[in-house]
C-alpha cells in the first residue's frame, strides 16, 4: 500500500479519542453508549490496519484481525442490547436518562 500506516492508525486514535470525549461529556446514557461503540470502532480500525500492513504472510495470520474484529462487533452488539435494556429499565423506573442525575450511590 502506498498509504503510510500512520494515516489509518491516526484515524483510529482520533476516533478513539473522539469517542472518549463524547462519552465523557455527554450526559445522555444512550449517547454515551454510542460513543463507546465509536471507540470500539477505533479499535477495529487499528486491528485491520495492522493486519493489512504487517500480517499478510499467511492466510491464518491474516484472518486473525478480521476474526477478532468480528468478535468485538458481536460483543458490542450484545453489550449494546444489554446496555440499552439497563438504560430503559432506569428510564422506566426513574424517568431520567441523564447520568448526572443518577447518583444515589456515592461516598
Amino acid at each position, binding site marked *: 500500500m502506498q498509504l503510510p500506516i500512520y494515516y489509518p492508525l491516526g484515524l483510529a486514535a482520533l476516533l478513539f479519542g473522539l469517542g472518549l470525549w463524547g462519552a465523557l461529556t455527554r450526559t445522555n446514557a444512550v449517547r454515551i453508549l454510542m460513543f463507546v461503540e465509536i471507540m470500539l470502532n477505533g479499535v477495529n480500525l487499528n486491528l485491520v490496519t495492522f493486519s493489512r500492513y*504487517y500480517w499478510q504472510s499467511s492466510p491464518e495470520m491474516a484472518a486473525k484481525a478480521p476474526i477478532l474484529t468480528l468478535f468485538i462487533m458481536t460483543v458490542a452488539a450484545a*453489550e449494546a442490547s444489554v446496555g440499552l435494556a439497563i438504560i430503559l429499565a432506569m428510564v422506566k423506573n426513574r424517568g431520567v436518562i441523564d447520568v448526572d442525575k443518577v447518583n444515589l450511590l456515592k461516598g
Partner: protein
Amino acid sequence: MPGAINWTTAVHPNYVFIMPQLIITATLLLVMIVDFYVKEKRNLVWVTLAGVVVSLFSVFFAATDEDIKLGMTIGEPREFFGGMLVADGFTFFLQAVLLGIAALVILLSVDYVEKFLRGAYLEYYQVLLSATLGMMFMVSSRDIVTIYIGLELSSIGSYILAGMLRKDPKSNEAALKYFLNGTIASAVLLFGVSILYGVSGQTSLEGIAAALSGTGVVAAAGDALVPLIVTGIIFVAGGFAFKVAAVPMHLWAPDAYEGAPTPVTGFFSVGPKGAAFGAVLRVFLVGLGVAPFTERWTLIWAVLATASMFVGNLTALMQTNIKRMMAYSSIAQAGYMLVGVVATGTEPAAGTSAVIFYVLAYALTNLGIFAILTHLDQEGGWVSISDFKGLVNRNPAYAWAMLLFLVSLIGIPPTVGFMGKLFLFQAAAKSGYLWLALVMAVNSVISVGYYYGVVKAMFLETSDKPTLKPSFGISTTVIVSVIGVVGVTLASNWFVQMASNAAAMLK
C-alpha cells in the same frame, strides 16, 4: 483457499477437557427446559446446583484424564481446540474455585430470589451460570480472543445481575454504572490488545511473547517500539485493573456493590475478580513476561497494589453501609492479591500460587460473609453496620461464623485468610518486594479498624430485634465456608500443592 489450514493439527479437540464448560452450557439450557415443566420454580435451584456440582466433578475428572495428565506430568500444558483452550493445573484449579463460588452463590441466593427477585429463578440462575461460564473460559485460555470473549460474557452477566432488582433505583444505577464503566474499560483493554496484535500479529499469548522477545516487526523497529508496546501493556493492565477493581480503577465497585442484590454483590466480590486474576496472571506471565516489559508491568501492579490497599482500607473506615464497606474491603483484598501478581515478575511460581490460593481463600471467606449479609438483608433491607448489633444474641452461630470470616479477612490464623496472606508475604519477600509485604502488614492492621466495627456491634452491643432463624441455603453456605476457612488451613498442604503445581505449569 481451502486446505490452507490443517484441520487436524489446528483443532485437536479433547472433549474431556471441555466437559466442565459443556456441562454448564447444558445446564444453562436445561434450566430453561425444566422451567416449562416445574410448577415450583424453586426446584430449579437443584437443577442448577446439580449442574455446577457435576461440572465440578468433571473438572477433577478432566484433571485426571490420561491424555491431559500426560501433558501435565511433563510440565507442558496441552492446548486443545486450536490453542483456544489449555489444559493445565492452573486452569483446573481456578475452574474448580469458580465453580465452587457459583455453587455457593446459588445456594445463598435461594431465598433472596424468592423474596426480592420475584422468583425469577430461571433468569437469575441462567445469567449466573453464563457469567460463570465466561469466567471459566477466561481462566482456561491462552488466546486473547477467548479470554476477551469469556471476560465479556462474565461482564454482561454481571451487568444483568447487578440490575436484577428492576424496581430498585439503586440496582438500576449500579447496573448502569457498572455497565458504562465496564464498556469503557473493555474498549481500553481492546485498544491495548490491538497494539499488541499490531506488533506481534498474534492473538495467542505465547505468540505475543515470542514476538515481543524480538521477532518480526519488533525486530524491525528495534527499541523504538518499546514505548508503543508499553503503552499497549498499560492499556491491557488498565482493563484488567478495572475488572479486579484496583485503585484508581475502583470507583465503580462501591456503587455497583452497594446497589446490586446482596448475593450478587457477594458473587462480584469473588467471582469476576478471581477470574480476572486468573486472566491477569496468564496474560502477563505467558504473554507479556518478556524481559524489558516485565519490570514495567511489575511496577504498574506494585503501584496499583499499594494504592488499592491504602485507599481500600482507609476509605472502608469511613463507611456505614456494610455492603459498601465490603466493597472497599474487596478493593483492599485485590490490592493484597496484586502483591502476588507483582511477585510473579521475578518469582512466577511463588507469586502465582500465592495469588490463586488467595483467590480460593478469599472466596471461601467472603461468600460466608455475604451469606450472612444476605440473610440480614432479607430481614431488614438496608444493610448497615448497625444491623449487626447484638447478632450474638440473635443468632450466635452466625455471629461466631462472621467473626471467623472477619478474622480470616484480616489474616489472623488459624484461618485460610492467614494462609493466603502468608503465601503472599512469602512471594513478596522472595521476589524482593519486602516493602510491599510490609505495606500489606500495615494494611492488615488498618483493616481491623472497620472489621472491628462489625465485631463490636455483634458482640458488645445489644439489640431487641428478633432472633434470626437459619434458612437452608444460607446456613449451608455458612457451614461450607466455615469448614472451608478452617479446613483448608488444616489441610492446606493439599491445596498448596495444587496451587504450586498449577503455578508451575503456567507458562
